[in-house]
């Protein structure tokens, strides 16, 4: 079907104007690469009367180093992140995560901003209007039950962006611009554990850029996702690991997960491993810890227990690989 609902498209060339246009219509939505948004519009999940196309705003598209590290504009394309030499060298997990998103055409259009602000996903939600109607909709959109956990009042739709965890292990910060001015917050604070309302963005706030602090000396990182196919698929579980070793002992270890909760999540309790040797016991303990904190629900066709198992396995595998 070639259905495309009608909307008015604005194409501002500054961030300030984008914010202004956005606040003038309560149904409006930001549109970056559109690789997620247009799918949702066609499915009637999003019904904006106005869309603010961000692709003409030149100064949110650059990737540049400054004194404190790297600044990546929200409009930068994933394909560019994946091949950027600084990112590959200093923040390998970020390049790997960007390269693992969807397929090549999506990465050529899809932006990092759209990736970080991606809606949460669920089998019962990412469906056509007819489908959701036939299933009486659900809590997240128009309905009053959750088909994943029918008793409850919570939504467990999984955040499934690949790049967020890879940036979070570097303690990335984000610059936001809204009707009430700009602010900078840790990327981790962009998210909350609620599938229905997982972003802490204020009304009409625009993500302008991401700042990756200078990577510490000796730190290495990697990202890997589990998926059924080698391309296209969203992560069933994704894991970013950043490791610093000192004389065969763990000097610093950060792990962040995606697709196993409604928000991308830092794994807690890793400080306990500092100073320990990376032996089998430690690696098994890391796997256990990761598995415990992942809480995938039946939001994909692949069973949750597998996603939990596999996210632990990924964390262990990546840590081993980084320890070299």
């Amino acid at each position, binding site marked *: *079907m070639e259905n495309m609902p009608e909307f008015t498209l604005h194409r501002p060339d500054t961030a300030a104007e984008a914010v202004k246009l956005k606040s003038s219509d309560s149904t409006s939505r930001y549109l970056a690469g559109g690789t997620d948004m247009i799918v949702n519009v066609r499915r009637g999940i999003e019904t904006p009367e106005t869309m603010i196309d961000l692709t003409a705003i030149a100064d949110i598209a650059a990737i540049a180093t400054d004194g404190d590290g790297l600044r990546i504009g929200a409009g930068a394309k994933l394909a560019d992140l994946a091949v950027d030499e600084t990112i590959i060298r200093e923040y390998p997990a970020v390049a790997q995560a960007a390269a693992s998103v969807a397929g090549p055409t999506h990465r050529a259009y899809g932006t990092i901003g759209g990736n970080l602000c991606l809606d949460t996903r669920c*089998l019962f939600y990412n469906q056509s209007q007819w*489908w959701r109607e036939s299933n009486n909709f659900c809590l997240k959109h128009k309905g009053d039950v959750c088909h994943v956990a029918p008793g409850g009042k919570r939504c467990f739709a999984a955040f499934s962006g690949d790049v967020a965890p890879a940036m979070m292990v570097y303690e990335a910060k984000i610059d936001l611009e809204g009707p009430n001015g700009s602010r900078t917050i840790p990327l981790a604070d962009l998210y909350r554990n609620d599938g229905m309302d997982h972003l802490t963005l204020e009304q009409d706030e625009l993500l302008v850029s991401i700042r990756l602090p200078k990577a510490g000396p000796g730190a290495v990182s990697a990202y890997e996702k*589990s998926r*059924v196919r*080698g*391309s296209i*698929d969203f992560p069933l579980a994704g894991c970013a690991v950043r490791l610093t070793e000192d004389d065969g002992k763990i000097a610093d270890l950060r792990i962040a997960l995606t697709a196993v909760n409604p928000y991308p999540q830092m794994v807690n309790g890793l400080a306990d491993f500092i100073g320990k040797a990376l032996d089998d016991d430690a690696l098994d303990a890391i796997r256990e810890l990761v598995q415990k904190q992942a809480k995938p629900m039946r939001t994909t*066709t692949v069973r949750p227990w*597998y996603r939990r198992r596999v996210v632990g396995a990924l964390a262990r595998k990546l840590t081993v690989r980084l320890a070299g």
Partner: protein
Amino acid sequence: MDGNGMPPAPITSIGEPLPMVDGPEKIAGKALYTSDFYDPSALAGAIKRSTVAHARIVSVDTSAAEALPGVHAVITGSETDEGHGVLPISRTELPIAHDKVRYKGEPVAAVAADSIEIAIKACDLIVVEYEELPAYYTAEDALAKDAVDLHDHREGNIERHVEFEIGDVDGGFADADLVHETEYHCAEVCQVQTEPHAAYVEYDGERDELTVRASTQVPYYVHLMLSKILKMPKSKIRVIKPYVGGGFGCRTEALNVEMITAMLARRAKGTVRTVVSREDTFITHRGRQEQTIKIQMGMTKDGRITAVDCKTIQRGGAHSGYGIVTILYAGSMLFAIYDLHNVRYDGKRVLTNTPPCGAFRGHGTVNTRHAFENAMDEMSKKLGLDPFAVRRVNLIPELGFTASDQWINSYGLPECLDIVEKASGWKERIGKLPPGRGLGLGCSHYISGASKPVNWTGEPHATVNLKLDFDGTVVILTGASEIGQGSNTILVQCVAEVLGIDPSRVKVVDADSRVTPKDNGSYSSRVTYMVGNAAIEAANNLKGMLVEAAARKLEVSPEDVECLGEVYRAGTQDEGMTFEEVVMAALEGTGTITAKGNFDTLPESWGGKKYRGAAIGGTMAFSYAAQVVEVTVDPDTADITVDKVWVAHDCGKALNPLTVEGQIQGSVWMGMGQALTEETSYHDGLLISGNMLDYRVPTFVDSPPIEAHIVESNDPHGPFGAKEAGEASLAGFLPALTSAVANAMGVRVHELPVTPDRLLQLLEDKERKMRSAAE
């Protein structure tokens, strides 16, 4: 003599890797598919679908939709009371549900409007009142004692129950050294061809006539069904098949999309264009059914199969479709690959409240073959035999009739086995691979067209006309449906070969009911074999006319004319006549020449003497394939990587090695999808996986190197010895994969697809068992 002093010779086309004749248009984007037909005045068609799985339709209120500006026609189930379907005995499906809906997504109304957005809005305004009935999403539930019947004429929700016993099965088991029973379950799969369903229908109100373009494999069946449901004479309908973006069996019957579009066009008295979504295409379905197969097999200690007992249940969906044929094939295709004498079969095709299944590539054979080959592999392990050795002791010793009366005229399976055994280094490597790596073997076969047509009309199986005129172009007029498989290319090669002319002289006009001879369509791998033979006959007839004309001009008798393709001459010293000169001579007095060729199957190939179902599975020629699959399994995540596939396919004669290789690779690749990643899933009868993210067709990245070998057994009746090339290599992949995984990890997955979660579960169970055994 040409400039080099070489005598001229007929040009060879057969066996040449000729690029597809319709390639340039496709590559350049000039090929017109159904959705490329567009007229500014064309209305957009949209289908409203049922939101419930099983219900009586109490009322359909279309008033608000009709009142919407821009709406030109609204139709419901009352538009026609004529059912459609492939088999005359099961035409119970209506293009739009009338009294009852039987699956979520079944059409309940349709709209033609100025734009697709208006059409969708109008669909939303149609109010359907349902009185819900109990719904059954599994075969088991539909078969339950107190289940309500979906259709009045199908008691207990059984579409067809097929039972037969050939030979002495119990005696065979008594003779066995090992009797083994095993069960396999195959998920439902879809074709996911590139092009979603589309129809473009022009209604001529002055003449009450229809011109229909549709994405179909069977324009003739579409023609018949349109005439039936519209109650219009066939002569008032013209069906044209534009370029088609793949079919794989999902378009082997007339689909509701084209029938609804035609009804809308007539009602709106104009042109209607319907291009349905990918989700709608999934729901229209006609994919391969979910199926459980229980096989009991007896073997002697050297691996000879003494008896087979196969029980199977297929979940067919809400309507018959090809269902009866499918359940018959599943039984009859147990034969004709190995030397079997004692076989019992019990197959049930069950009606359920899910979208209707159909004839997917490898129709009827794939799931049963999967279970059968796995049973052989399991037993070879138990008996300590090599899987190749077990295949070899069961090879068919001589050509002729099987115990089920199927006719085998060529049999390249032994050579296929030899090739893949050697190419994969099986002997040196099996049992010696590092942990997590494994090899597996699977064999399969397929028919080259069903020898008995589904609808018996007394006509030949295939007819081809050739037209030759002053310009010296040989035009092939054929109803055969080119759907990307290369049938036009093969017909060009057949005709060019017979005439010995440059293939670029031969052009094809295809699949337009007003111009081309009728053809049953592209399914059951019938086209190369049947239409190819008809094309050869037509070309021979044409050649006869040309030789006669040349003889007249050269003043010799026809026997003395030597046809060298582009030159006809009477003796080696004679300069002869060019092809153009011969053509002009042939046109003298008669004008434009048409030559015709037919093909008919031989009655011996019809099957059916030993039991009625064998007629389904009767063919002029069986093709054969063997393949070895190598895998690596990640022990932590159970991710499976297919490292390589070696496949050999006996296609009789590779008329075009390039397209044959493409077909073999495509079959293997499709088998890989079914084996590893593809399955439909439902939530209360609602298709969850109706999109290409949740229905996981393998991507480029997942495609292994496929080493395709062609075996040429030269079938005595095939066109230049050819037989089927596009289906047999699919089924063997599935058991080769599960056997390779078993070889790598020591566990055999009995449920398809072998997704990592299914495999990891088995690996963990195994580990737990070993641990508790150790304690």
